[in-house]
């Protein structure tokens, strides 16, 4: 008995440092063990851990690129031209004689940043918007979702070009613009989930306890809608990376001599027959990253599902 009390207070102590919030409900969230339980379960999933490890490795490598990269990203060697992998250039060079490894590392900085920021924007807006629309319902829901429909209907290219014209070419704007389009589907998914969840008696029980609407959304609805959200997020990250490549290819995103994985791949496709390594290595990097993301996403979804076995 006393042993269990101890472990309870221990669990609270260990997580309290994470939330410095003060109002009464947050104060009590220290005791919530959904996330710590999820972490325990995730630790037992080797595939998800491998994925996480790989992502951390790639992220660190890209972060430290300016210090570890063997060459500069625009350093040309026109005499060398496109050369296959060699001891000097591990992954070979492109037609301008630029080191491919260096360019992949620099490209990763852009691609990962797009993936992270645009997806976070999509997550934040999409989940909040969908949860509110689904929970409040009625006219609010109708207005909010019609707005989503309208933005859906706007041709994406025109939207982006307009933004570029008004605000000028800006990497951050690009991230924001992609995020601002990707949240629409997220909002629809979350709204559907919340609509079916709010009919359940535990939501009514939460109302009869006296919880506010916002607390019900945050504590009861969103945690139960997380499964599909995580799966869709792992699908969103690669799609925004490819979107960035597409926009850059059209001249709207980042410009040469800067690079991103998507750009490297699209240049690689052009010279696939003569210089296959220009396609293979950037393609491999992107593929491995996406694999890692999917493993991690699946692992997270299972870890957050408390109904999955606990042994």
């Amino acid at each position: 008995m006393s042993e269990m009390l101890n472990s309870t207070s221990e669990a609270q102590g260990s997580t309290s440092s994470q939330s410095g919030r003060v109002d009464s409900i947050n104060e009590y969230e220290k005791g919530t063990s959904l996330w710590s339980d999820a972490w325990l379960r995730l630790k037992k999933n080797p595939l998800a851990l491998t994925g996480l490890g790989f992502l951390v490795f790639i992220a660190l490598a890209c972060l430290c690129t300016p210090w570890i990269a063997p060459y500069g990203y625009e350093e040309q060697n026109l005499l060398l031209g496109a050369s296959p992998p060699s001891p000097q250039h591990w992954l070979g060079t492109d037609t301008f004689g630029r080191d491919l490894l260096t360019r992949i590392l620099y490209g990763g900085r852009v691609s990962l940043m797009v993936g992270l920021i645009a997806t976070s924007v999509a997550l934040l807006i999409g989940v909040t918007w969908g949860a509110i629309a689904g929970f409040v319902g009625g006219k609010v829901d109708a207005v909010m979702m019609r707005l989503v429909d309208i933005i859906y209907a706007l041709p994406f290219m025109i939207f982006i070009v307009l933004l570029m014209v008004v605000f000028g070419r800006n990497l951050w704007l690009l991230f924001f613009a992609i995020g601002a389009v990707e949240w629409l589907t997220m909002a629809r998914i979350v709204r559907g989930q919340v609509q079916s969840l709010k009919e359940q008696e535990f939501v009514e029980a939460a109302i009869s306890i006296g919880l506010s609407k916002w607390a019900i959304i945050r504590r009861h609805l969103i945690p139960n809608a997380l499964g599909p959200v995580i799966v869709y997020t792992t699908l969103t990250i690669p799609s925004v990376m490819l979107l960035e490549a597409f926009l850059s290819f059209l001249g709207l995103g980042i410009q040469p001599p800067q690079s991103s994985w998507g750009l490297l791949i699209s240049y690689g496709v052009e010279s696939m027959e003569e210089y296959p390594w220009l396609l293979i290595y950037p393609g491999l990097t992107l593929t491995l990253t996406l694999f890692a993301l999917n493993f991690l996403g699946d692992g997270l979804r299972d870890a957050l599902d408390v109904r999955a076995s606990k042994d």
Partner: protein
Amino acid sequence: MTALLEVKNLTTYFHTRNGVVKAVDDVSFTVKSGETLAIVGESGSGKSVSCYSMLGLIPSPPGRIEAGEAWFDGRDLLKASQAELRQIRGSKIAMIFQDPMTSLNPYLTVGEQLIEPLIFHHKLSRAEAAEKARSLLQEVGIRDPEKTYHAWPHEFSGGMRQRVMIAMALIAEPKLLIADEPTTALDVTIQKQILELVKEIQQHRDIGVIFISHDLAVVKDLADQVVVMKTGRVVERGDAPSIFNCPDHDYTKKLLAAIPAGSKASAHDTAQMSHPLLSVNNLVTTFADRHSGDRFKAVDDISFELQRGEILGLVGESGSGKSTLGRSVLKLAQSDSGSIVFDGEEIQDLTAKAMRPYRRRMQMIFQDPYASLNPRMTIYDTLAEPLVLHDLAKGPQLNKAVLELMDDVGLARAYVRKYPHEFSGGQRQRIAIGRAIATKPELVIADEPVSALDVTIQKQILELILHLVDKHHLSMLFISHDLAVVRVLCDRVMVMKQGRVVESGLMESVWSSPQHDYTEALLKAAP
């Protein structure tokens, strides 16, 4: 008479990660034509698994039939191939399931669903099949077969759907009908009709029936033979009169004792007290019909008072508006007019925000313990949430309060970090009750809190509620479709029909001399 089905030493194990579960352990029984065998036991006793395993319907793996024979129609079902079993299931053995709401395809008319097997298995023409379907609908007591034939499943009540399911089961003229808790999801009056229908069909068609139930009372008038199962084993068997009149095994006695009977011991007359805790006057709650837009009155001009420390019973069938009344009082449903006075304060017009301080003082216990707990919150979090919200406990006191709640509702303290899915229905209902009494409310509305539970569990939960009402001086509005359950708990009772109170009074006088026809029908229908 020869046996229609003879099951010998049937043994089915489930090989799970946590070890072997002996779901069915050396079970034997026989069914003769024109006879009804009742298999009775709690959930998890193996009563359904034993029938499902001989029909090849258990998930395998993890399920595996370890030993036994099941002789039907000259062959051993356990040795039959899946294809042979499929043939038998479609024609000679038919099943009826518990939940008629989910067992019909919502996108096909009733008629289409009925003629499908006739066209595919029996090679009848469309017209012949339709003719046969109509006569079957008539046989299962559907008054207007022509109209029903073209109707959609959602246009029917639960009882009507169960009739359609029975018609579907009969379509291939089976020799054996297996009914798996066919009335558990139905109201008492409907349950009575369905039980009568099953009996009628059995006699009329001279077929064998296996009737699976958790409730001995239900099978009393129906069964010729009774098999009582517990944890995979048969603990007692015999013909119905001997089981009911002189049961041998302790477990059978326990099942019989769990049938709600008798009245509340300390019935005291509280109606004269001057200050009621809750006073509801001329309350009206309406809902808009989704298709026509007309409003219908779910609660139609209802007035009543609830004294402190009193348990008031509210009885009616589904659709009578009893749940809506309960939800209106707690303002979980918005009422149109009338007044709700709680402890001298009018709360009918309060906004959601102004209502919040009152929430601590009035709580609800819900019917379905599977839906009323957040699956992603531990028991600790579920119980702590109301305490923290209303600022009743913090830090070490919070731990103490939560653990005391666990004691209060009879759950081991060590369970506090588990999630709802790790508990049985009865345990979950205990958790839900714990959440309802956490804030030490004055008023608790219990909406069919035992309807989803086995009889033995039902008895325990009723005892728990009585104990807690006494200990914490609660006032309770107890909503149920079952007069016998209400009688165990309540001093006074109201009977509701179509949004109106048709009768109310002291429990014992309503029980012994009902004034309204509807009350009398409810009393008669109780098994």
